[in-house]
């Protein structure tokens, strides 16, 4: 099938999509946007988190066809040219990035949190990021990064 979807503000088209493919597969393998990650592909780890019409979702749980005529924003669409989004900048500065495989999902999820709650408390940050697994950091520096980004927005 053919899927038309707006990704990071651009109208995109994918052809020969098998009906069982996920939005994640189409983004990564057909549209050249591998930033959203494939750590579990069953909605447990959050590494594929993208905005679908402004709501964060696990792209692995969205069938590609469900994205037809909708707007998707991925981690690749957060920076403005060379200028990182404050959340991205804070993740690098705070040491919240080690292997970085969880980072795209966490950056999108934290970006959404700060859009909704500009100055979240620690328990609010923890609840918001509870669906994003990180195996490297123990999360302390991720919390630091979100606090830092909040202080700058």
């Amino acid at each position, binding site marked *: 099938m053919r899927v038309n979807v707006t990704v990071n503000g651009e109208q995109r088209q994918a052809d020969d999509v*098998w009906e*069982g493919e996920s939005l994640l597969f189409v983004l*990564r*393998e057909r549209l*050249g*946007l*591998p*930033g*959203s*990650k*494939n*750590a*579990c*592909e*069953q909605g*447990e*780890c959050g*590494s594929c988190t993208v905005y679908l019409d402004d709501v964060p979702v696990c792209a692995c749980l969205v069938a590609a066809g469900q994205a037809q005529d909708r707007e998707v924003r*991925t*981690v*690749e669409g*957060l*920076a403005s040219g060379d200028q*990182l989004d404050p959340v*991205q*900048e804070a*993740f*690098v*500065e705070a*040491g919240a*990035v*080690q*292997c*970085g*495989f*969880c*980072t*795209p999902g966490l*950056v999108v999820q934290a970006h959404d949190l700060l859009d909704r709650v500009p100055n979240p408390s620690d*328990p609010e*940050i*923890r*609840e918001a*990021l*509870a*669906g*994003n*697994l*990180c*195996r*490297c*950091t*123990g*999360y*302390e*520096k*991720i*919390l630091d990064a979100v606090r830092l980004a909040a202080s700058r927005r």
Partner: protein
Amino acid sequence: MTLTPAELTSAVSGGIGTSPQRPDGNLKVRGEFAYASDLWHEDMIWGSTLRSPHPYARITSIDLTEALQVPGVYAVLTHEDVPGRNLYGLEHKDQPVLAVDVVRYQGEPIALVGADHPETALRAMKKIVVTYDVLEPVVDMETAADDTPLHPGGNLVRHVPIRRGSQDVTAEVVVTGRYEVGMQDQAFLGPESGLAVPATDGSVDLYIATQWLHVDRDQIAAALGLPQEQVRLTLSGVGGAFGGREDLSMQVHACLLALHTGKPVKMVYNREESFYGHVHRHPAVLYYEHGADHTGKLVYVRTRMYLDGGAYASSTPAVVANAATLGVGPYEVDNVTVDAYGVYTNNPPCGAMRGFGAVQAGFAYESQMDKLAEALGMSPVDVRVRNAMTEGSVMPTGQVVDSAAPVAQLLKLVQDKPLPAGTSTDIRELPGGVSNTTHGEGVVRGVGYAVGIKNICFSEGYDDYSTARVRVSMVNGELAAAVHTAACEVGQGLVTIMQQIVRTELGIERVTVLPMDTTIGNGGSTSASRQTYVTGGAVKAACALVKDRLAGRTDIGDEVIDEVTEWRHRATEPIDPETGQGNAHVQYGFAAHRAVVDVDVDLGLVRVVSLDCAQDVGRALNPQAVVGQIQGGSAQGLGLAVMEEIQTSGGKVRNPSFTDYLIPTVLDMPPMSIDVLELADPHAPYGIRGVGEPPTISSTPAIVAAIRAATGLALTRVPVRPEHLTGT
């Protein structure tokens, strides 16, 4: 070809002792860093792996006919298509690339499919018909050595005895225990993946996520029947490792498919396959007896421990040696008896995971120290301090600890930290959280302590070295440096450290880290907490050669100064096979934890309230990265304490998913206050001491000690599950 590894040039400056940003940080937060599963090549096809559903069976036939007829399938391969040696392994070559006539664990690879779409490959795989004669699996590590032999030499992989001092001395106070450690998974987030690209001359390039390029290369070349120079590896982005990428997974398979079809082949495991596709932490059963005098001074320690290596040897021999030589912990004990056994079973193969044998022993000996404290009426910290090793202490192997061993100081540091406030009234900070399972009723608090010891670098006489090249030339009128190694960056930050070392040694700010590959000599394994030590040492040594040639010049015109050197740490010795005596280890690392927990005793739910750590790192080359390692290692220890276990039944894995194998989320992790000591080791570059593993050892027993303190339960097995706390 897209998404080849990037050269990393950070605009941020900073030498050793500072915390400059990672040179790959911007790429990673933008989603532009090329992990192995992101690779793409025109014309590439997809590989998949047919695996055994049985833990132990004889293969009676394999029929590929129908699979080969599926449209879009390019190749279906079995062991008959392996042109070279169909066996590999880190220490013993005992593991088939593809099974021949027997499978020894559930998930063992039998056949490969290459197809135009991953779904086509999966469908074709289901049309391969394998018939089996299913056999009774060997699953009990304690009796495995006397059970049906799974390999020609029997099921004992290695027995490490240690005999030191008197073997029959008695003591006033004796405590004994039997402890169990469940099978932990590394659960790195980036799945096993790689892209193999065949060349027209019959050679192959592999872009791969691994921990050791050269040992992968050697094993792949042997299996392919190619000279080593015809197998070229380039490190792709690695999404975490923690030991789980030391062994081969899809490396040979992707190359076989690529050479057979003449097409680039991408293989990516999904999470379920990842659980079958890499080795895990050895589960263990450990028997201990500690004898002490009435002042708490240890008189003897005797232990017999079993480590389940599963179907193939992997790194079991070295894991057993670690468990044995570090088996009494960071304590002075004159009389030691250790018998550590690593065995084959039909359980999933086990090998390296962060802490590598020291974790299993650590849970047991620290549980024993708490039991001893209780028997003596002493505090857990006092009994540990009473026996704490110091510089100059003698290990059970007879090796003298010849640099800082601040065990007592580390314990006192965590003991003196402020305790967290009392049990919260906010449900988000109670066991069960927003599940709203308690408002504080039934919740009890406990505090626990633990300290651990880990060997750093490779041991037992291994020739452990790394190779580094540093090249300096003029760029835009200034000196610029490039550093090249084959040492794998897996997330720990070696790329940053190498830049920092070059800046410090040469005073050159612009330092490019070149992609890691096999065009340069061996970098050694990214394991044993060794890369900053050994590859850092090699980069430092290469810089010294460059510095001589620079001779103080800041303008070298068109000259290019290029130096390559190998660097080794001081030699170690094998241990005596009868007595375990010998200078087996290069360096020892120490960390201590204090854990505070709240336990809902009605539901068996645990919330770790704080998990503070003190660790000596010799010298913190990058303080931010050091703290990140300690926090991350502590988190993996928390996972083993209260949630992480690959559960097996009759050799079959029952929970191969992140739905059923739980790793800590941000809700499970408490605030972690970290104290970093910098007591330089005079034998190591810059005085550093390996950082990555020690915190994983002491975190687990500290948390379990806190749960015991809260509940009064004995708790001799990790992970502690709700039913262990409620008795239901």
